[in-house]
């Protein structure tokens, strides 16, 4: 008996990639799932930072899909300086916001190709659908991505395969092209029919906007960072903070990040070292971190902002504890006017 053909599937756990995997499993392909941790996934971030008293837990969908289909899933951490260069210096530019989707795809596919070779798989596949996303899932960008990621025809997109030129796995007869999909566009109708046919239930809703890099607010914050601190100085810690809370640029060299709820406050506490941390004394309020070099006047204003967001139990003169390393002081700030706050908001 010949050894089964092995493929690496880039698995987000969404409906498309789950169906693509199921489609190939029905052709007898042995599948190794692969998912990347980039640090920019909205769902992952919400899992980490929001209050934990939720009714329904937020799941890691790639792992859940692996468990559902009974296929192994490898998670690879690609967050780091090399991936950040994709964000700061994309060869193919940004989409609507600060989203370097084409360069990101190239980066991921190169890494997937490397993993494919490491585990001795013959080809790789994704759940991409032709014409589903505006930047990276059109025919011309797909060709650019395949060329720059040096995939040599080894990437199969099973859901749209019949609308694309045959790939090596099809030409070699590892997979039957006739049994692959001809899906195109944004509708999910065909995918839902296939899910029913394959017995796939309980799949997540469409994950549009699942990446922070396509989020307008995040885009504005990251451009503010590039302008004031220089894109070459961006680290993953900065990225983590850019994703959370309210942000204010009080002065060119002073920025404030303020938690909006208990989960965010706890998340921010992890980033205290090297920053001022402000909290209302005696009443519940936000955790406020200050980046840069605030003067005494700046701190007083930021303490006022902290009271402003502390809710109805905080009077204007509510004391605020300000800590930096071992130093601690208590301020009783004046309120900050709403119109001033708005000029600082990022």
């Amino acid at each position: 008996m010949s050894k089964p053909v092995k493929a690496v599937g880039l698995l987000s756990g969404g409906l498309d990639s789950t169906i693509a995997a199921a489609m190939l499993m029905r052709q007898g392909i042995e599948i190794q799932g692969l998912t990347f941790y980039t640090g920019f996934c909205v769902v992952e971030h919400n899992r980490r930072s929001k209050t934990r008293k939720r009714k329904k837990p937020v799941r890691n969908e790639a792992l859940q899909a692996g468990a559902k289909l009974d296929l192994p899933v490898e998670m690879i951490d690609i967050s780091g300086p090399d991936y950040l260069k994709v964000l700061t210096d994309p060869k193919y530019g940004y989409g609507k916001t600060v989203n370097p989707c084409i360069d990101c795809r190239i980066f991921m596919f190169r890494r997937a190709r490397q993993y494919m070779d490491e585990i001795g798989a013959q080809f790789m596949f994704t759940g991409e659908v032709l014409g589903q996303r505006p930047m990276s899932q059109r025919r011309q960008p797909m060709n650019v991505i395949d060329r720059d990621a040096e995939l040599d025809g080894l990437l199969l997109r099973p859901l749209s395969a019949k609308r694309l030129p045959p790939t090596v796995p099809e030409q070699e007869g590892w997979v039957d092209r006739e049994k692959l999909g001809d899906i195109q566009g944004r509708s999910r109708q065909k995918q839902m029919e296939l899910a029913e046919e394959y017995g796939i239930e309980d799949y997540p809703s469409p994950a549009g906007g699942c990446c922070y890099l396509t989020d307008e607010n995040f885009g504005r914050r990251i451009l503010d960072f590039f302008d004031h601190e220089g894109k070459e100085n961006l680290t993953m810690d900065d990225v983590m903070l850019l994703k959370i809370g309210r942000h204010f640029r009080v002065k060119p060299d002073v920025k404030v990040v303020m938690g909006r709820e208990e989960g965010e406050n706890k998340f921010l506490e992890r980033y205290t070292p090297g920053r001022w941390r402000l909290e209302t004394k005696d009443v519940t309020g936000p955790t406020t971190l200050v980046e840069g070099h605030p003067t005494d006047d700046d701190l007083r204003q930021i303490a006022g902002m902290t009271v402003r967001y502390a809710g109805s139990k905080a009077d204007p003169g509510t004391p605020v504890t300000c800590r930096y390393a071992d130093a601690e002081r208590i301020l009783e700030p004046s309120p900050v006017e709403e119109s001033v706050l708005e000029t600082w908001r990022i």
Partner: protein
Amino acid sequence: MIQPVLTLDTFGLLCPVPIMKTASAIREIAVGEVLEVLADDPQILEDMPAWCASNGHALLDTIEEDEEYKLYVRKVK
């Protein structure tokens, strides 16, 4: 009584990092041996069973005490 041959401390780390570290640690033990994972991120209660199910390992037990967790994973293959 479960007798782990290796303990992985993931205190302070948030998922999926503890899962990625578990995947690395499991490579260091032999089939049939048990890995103990210490964690304080409650998301691990969702992720570890799914990771074990997809990768074919057995989650033998999960002990929860004061928002800290001990999970025991037997390497099956």
